[in-house]
């Protein structure tokens, strides 16, 4: 028995090796070299990177660009996270009903999730065109003059948020739907016998019982928000007037357009720190509202 146990450990290690090597080569090493690069200036073609200490970080925090870009990300979060959570929650409740055709509805909503980001963004870019786009044409039929969705600084981020919600709605509503399905129906029966109305049921039973799922959704959407990129790149390229510039778009521009790799690496290190610290804060705060059975 003891021998088997020993062998068991041995096999675990053997089976973990391929995966660990992949992680080492394709994740850990690039991360470490990015950390090193963030303290250098390197323009790719110029041979070896020059060590310049914390100069990249200093430049980032000295300029206004970083704060402006963070402000844009914050604007995205404020609109996107409540938007996606509320809408997927409502859709998930719809999924949970036994109306005819609900399966078809589920499939339809899931199609955007399977669509590639680039293809989806190209379609929306043309649909949101201020002058000739589908959306404004439809709005025109009911007498509303639509804005220049992607060319007006007031609407550009809103458009990015709406497209992101369109894309992610199917995925997150399915996850919340899974959470709702997991609730024991007898709890509802008990509440009904006690005379709870539907609002009380939602507030006191449904919400606490799906809170672990909501917590998962909150963390993933938060990380998604900081990593916002393809929709911005395709639809607005960061414009108009920099109103949709976000941090990953900046990393890409500095790295692969200006070939300022050190600066781009420093930005990505800051992004890493921001995401890790926000996730830790969320993990601490969850004790206050997430309810585990």
């Amino acid at each position, binding site marked *: 028995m003891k021998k088997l146990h020993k062998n068991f450990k041995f096999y675990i290690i053997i089976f973990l090796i391929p995966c660990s090597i992949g992680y080492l080569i394709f994740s850990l090493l690039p991360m470490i070299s990015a950390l090193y690069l963030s303290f250098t200036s390197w323009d*790719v*073609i110029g041979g070896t990177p020059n060590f310049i200490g914390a100069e990249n970080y200093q430049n980032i925090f000295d300029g206004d660009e970083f704060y402006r870009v963070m402000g844009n990300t914050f604007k995205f979060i404020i609109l996107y996270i409540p938007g996606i959570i509320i809408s997927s929650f409502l859709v998930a409740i719809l999924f949970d009903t036994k109306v005819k055709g609900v399966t078809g509805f589920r499939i339809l909503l899931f199609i955007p999730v399977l669509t590639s980001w680039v293809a989806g963004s190209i379609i929306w870019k*043309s649909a949101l*065109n201020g*002058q000739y786009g589908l959306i404004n044409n439809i709005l025109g039929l009911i007498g509303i003059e639509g804005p220049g969705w*992607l060319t007006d600084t007031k609407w550009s981020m809103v458009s990015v948020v709406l497209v992101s919600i369109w894309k992610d709605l199917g995925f997150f509503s399915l996850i919340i739907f899974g959470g709702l399905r997991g609730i024991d129906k007898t709890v509802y029966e008990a509440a009904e016998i006690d005379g709870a109305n539907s609002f009380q049921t939602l507030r006191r039973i449904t919400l606490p019982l799906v809170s672990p799922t909501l917590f998962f959704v909150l963390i993933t959407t938060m990380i998604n928000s900081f990593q916002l990129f393809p929709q911005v790149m395709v639809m607005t390229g960061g414009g*108009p*007037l920099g109103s949709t510039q976000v941090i990953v778009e900046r990393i890409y521009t500095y790295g*692969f357009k200006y070939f300022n790799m050190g600066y781009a690496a420093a930005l990505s290190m800051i992004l890493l720190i921001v995401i890790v610290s926000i996730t830790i804060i969320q993990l601490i705060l969850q004790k206050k509202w997430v309810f585990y059975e």
Partner: protein
Amino acid sequence: MKKLTVFILLVFMVFTITACNKDDDGRIQIDFLNFSSNGGQEETLAAMIEAFETENPDIKVNVETLGYDDYFTQLAIRVAGNQAPDVYELNIENFKAYADKGALSEIDTTKIDVSQVHETTLEAFQIGSKQYGLPTKFSNVVLIYNKDLFDEAGIDYPTNDWTWDEELEAAQAIRALGDGIFGVSRPIQTHEFYKTVVQNGGSMMNVDQTEFTLNSVENIEALGMMIDRINETNVTPNAEQLGGMGDWDLFLSGRLGMIVTGIWAFSTFADEADFDWDIVVEPGIKTKATHFFSDAVVVSSKSKQQEAGAKFAAFLSGSEEAALLRADANWDLPVALTDEVVDTYKSITPPLNKQAVFDSLDYLVTPPSLERFNEIADDLKSYLDRAIAKELTAKEALDQAQAFISSKYE
């Protein structure tokens, strides 16, 4: 046993690596990477290479063509990874960075024939007095106009003597033809800015390019004129009126009277415009000035086939044979401007007035030769955009741009 396998594999690898330089017939192989033949001129390039290989039976050229959007990312990564192609293409904007970093080998112009090559283009690819690239083609910018709209408005066609005043008058007459019809399009971005300020007697930097002079009186005046075309007279459509449409498409739709754009538009316009159009030298403000763009082929400093590479570069650049193929295909302007090449180039119409392309050569201006020009161009553009959006006046925009850019880049 294991060691033996590894050894055999290694031997095999060394063999295949060394074998790369020569093919079965014992010819020298060179790799050539380019972007400019992408999207329509691949066959012209293949014909040039065939002509070169016939002339030099001991050399074989392997071409690889990438789209412009990916080209410089791919190239930088290959150069960094010591995988640079033997010969590759660079445009004038990126040339300096590569030359300064020692990625290019010097081309000895005494050993090859560059006598036919247009002087300005040759100088554009020199650092000091050393030649690091051989130009293949160049282009400038002209005023292209829709004759039908001029006829409809009942006004005279533009001439080479026009200035911004006559251009504006004509543009207003054409704008009056209808709501969706616009007079003229000159884009507002950094490239257009550095040229237009020269037309007004200003400049983006001082003469020895050590300091920015973005907010000079001449520059502010010029930017004001550019923006008025959009916001005051509205002879140029604003972003909303364009609605995501490019100015080429607007011109091709027959709703734009004049467009200031590069001669590389000729082949597209010739194919797609269903109205009469022609060209003149771009009107200036106080003096004339127009863009100069050029592409060159360079030889990698890491290449083992320097001599063959330089020979190939010289063929693409200075030979009449390659130039004729290029002129015949309407593929920009070849640098080897012999009489026959000029005649061939002019014989391909529209536009009828191709002489204007040669007349424009007297007014060429080049962008400041700065390593981080792309970044500076984007920074300046963000201020120009705010002036177009009326968030700032022309003066405020350039004052702020001057302060920001000179503190960031000097």
